């Protein structure tokens, strides 16, 4: 079994670099959060790449080929995460009294703007071929579209900041941040969340194509190595690991999110260039994958994303799935256009499929469910439109 160095030594070296960097970061002031974020991002990147955990691709697989595994992975991630998150929130906020929210949890404003933002994000996902977190991990696979999608997202963020003040005065100021335990209590929230996810799982499995059974795998070194390093991880494993990373990150640093750093870079650059208004009304008081005017080069979210990309690169290399290609004109256009929609949606919705959908549903925020519903709608219509255009 002779594999080239690019599939063994190089990925190992990358992981060593990440570990060494985390160790160095520990010594700085505030370094423990930075080091943890880097490592959590790396873990997340590996799970995303190995599990092919992309909201869009999984949805598209189901719509086009009735392949259920990806959606099941997402449903498992949401369900397990709800339980793990509640272990933490119930310790931090024993009684969900009105006015009390678990610190930093992504419980965002629910209103028409969120719905439109999620819809736009879904459209962007369908057009560009992935959600933002998947574009980050796809960078590690050498995807030709992803760099353009991220550039487009930056532009979308700028447009989002420019449209923020009118949207805030129009609707967001009155959109309440609804935390389900306030209405349903913790038990009610857990039961309702798990119940709804169970219904979705049943629907997915009901309409699944039964022909995609896997062959019995060899339980020896090469068989297991193939299952771990090359083949797609089983949906339950991938989903559960995503849930664990999400809850651990919340316990230690902050809820998961991938757009805070990108948005903050755009916000800081936009301010310096005089493109943005002096005040973004109310933005800093709202919960979500928050953007700030950057004061330091390294931030927890920035390191999380860097860890994500590097580790997913390592995982892709090991799997022989790093396949850089020259981007075609169509890929560039789709990436940019989809990216702009996603960037705008992520800014006005205060996060993306990770920051609002995943972290929101985990925390018991109604905003997570609203994002799920409207994003799915946007994805579905977007895929229909893309098929029409292609036909």
């Amino acid at each position: 079994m002779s594999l080239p160095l690019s599939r063994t030594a190089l990925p190992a070296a990358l992981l060593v670099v990440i570990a060494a960097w985390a160790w160095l970061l520990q010594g700085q002031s505030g370094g423990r959060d930075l080091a943890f974020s880097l490592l959590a991002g790396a873990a997340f990147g590996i799970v995303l790449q190995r599990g092919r955990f992309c909201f869009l691709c999984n949805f598209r697989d189901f719509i086009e080929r009735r392949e259920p595994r990806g959606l099941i992975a997402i449903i498992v991630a949401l369900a397990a995460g709800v339980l793990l998150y509640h272990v933490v929130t119930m310790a931090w906020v024993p009684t969900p009294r009105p006015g009390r929210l678990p610190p930093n949890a992504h419980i965002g404003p629910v209103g028409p703007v969120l719905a439109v933002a999620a819809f736009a994000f879904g459209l962007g996902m369908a057009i560009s071929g992935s959600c933002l977190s998947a574009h980050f991990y796809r960078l590690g696979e050498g995807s030709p579209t992803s760099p353009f999608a991220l550039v487009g997202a930056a532009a979308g963020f700028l447009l989002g900041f420019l449209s923020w003040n009118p949207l805030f005065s129009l609707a967001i100021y009155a959109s309440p941040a609804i935390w389900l335990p306030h209405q349903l209590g913790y038990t009610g929230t857990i039961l309702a969340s798990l119940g709804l996810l169970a219904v979705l799982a049943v629907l997915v499995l009901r309409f699944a194509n039964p022909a995609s059974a896997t062959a019995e795998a060899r339980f020896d070194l090469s068989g297991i190595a193939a299952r771990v390093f090359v083949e797609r991880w089983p949906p339950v494993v991938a989903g559960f690991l995503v849930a664990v990373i999400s809850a651990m990150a919340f316990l230690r640093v902050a809820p998961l999110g991938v757009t805070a750093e990108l948005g903050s870079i755009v916000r800081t650059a936009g301010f310096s260039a005089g493109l943005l208004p002096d005040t973004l009304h109310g933005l800093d008081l709202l919960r979500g994958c928050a953007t700030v005017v950057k004061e330091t080069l390294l931030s927890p979210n920035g390191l999380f994303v860097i860890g994500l990309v590097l580790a997913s690169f390592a995982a892709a290399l090991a799997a022989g799935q790093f396949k850089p290609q020259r981007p075609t004109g169509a890929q560039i256009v789709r990436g940019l256009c989809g990216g702009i929609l996603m960037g705008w949606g992520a800014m006005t919705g205060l996060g993306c499929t990770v920051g609002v959908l995943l972290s929101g549903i985990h925390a018991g925020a109604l905003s997570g469910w609203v994002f799920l519903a409207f994003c799915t709608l946007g994805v579905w219509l977007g895929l229909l439109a893309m098929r029409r255009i292609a036909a």
Partner: protein
Amino acid sequence: MNHLKWAGALAGAFLVAGAAGAAEPLVSAEWLQDNLDNPDVRVFEVSVDTGVYERGHIPGAVHLDWHTELVDPTRRDIASREEFEAKLRDAGITGDTQIVLYGDNNNWFAAWGAWVFDVYGIEVSLLDGGRKLWEAQGLPLDTNVRDYADSDITLPERNGDLRARLTDVLDIAEGRLAAKLVDIRSNDEYTGKIFAPEGVKELAVRAGHIPTAENVPWGTIVQEDGTFKSPEEIKAIYAAKGIDGSQPIVTYCRIGERSSHTWFALKRILGYDAKNYDGSWTEYGNAVGVPVVNVAGTVWTGK
């Protein structure tokens, strides 16, 4: 001889009782570590950043949320006697409890909490160095929130001797009252060069300082690790600016919370007569018709 012995014993008892009532201004991390399980010691954390307490606090520490439990959220004022009393009862505070406060950001808001406690008649101690020191020394943190048995402590009315109001500060500025003003903000804010540090939302319409105020930025009296400098050093730093305790002192900053840190040093560590002006520059700099010293000549919204 018997009467003398009795008198001596009585005098001794009074001395001991008096000492037991007063709290040490600062406690060390070693002392606190040794007293974590002492039922007569209660620790409170007053941190600025969200989620810091929940993610790890000194074992047994109670969370004092500066946002909601030290202030009145509707009108600009400190917490009402009833609300603060309820909080202390819930934390099981009695007349014998020794209270220690600590927090992030160099104990800024812990000092402010200490001032609020003092206004309601309870002297507390600060953990010298705060969270920063505790974490730097790798001392244990835990996420467990303890539920203490309720007490029935009653709080007196607010002690106005510790709090300066706008009228008091105006009396000093216009020379009707002999007292010293200490502005603990950065020199740029004091001279009027900037209205407030970058990104800050609590602003004033005018820049500068209150006439006759001396500028001693709060950081001057702390060391690198967040602990206070020695009492002798602190005394010398203020004496160099003409503040030696011979006159009453009023401290202020932008919003009145950080100035409690300096108030704590002056009143509790040095024993001077000091009040905190918690309205601070956000009140004074926005008040109509008050005298302002603006050395830098910055005009609001103008260049």
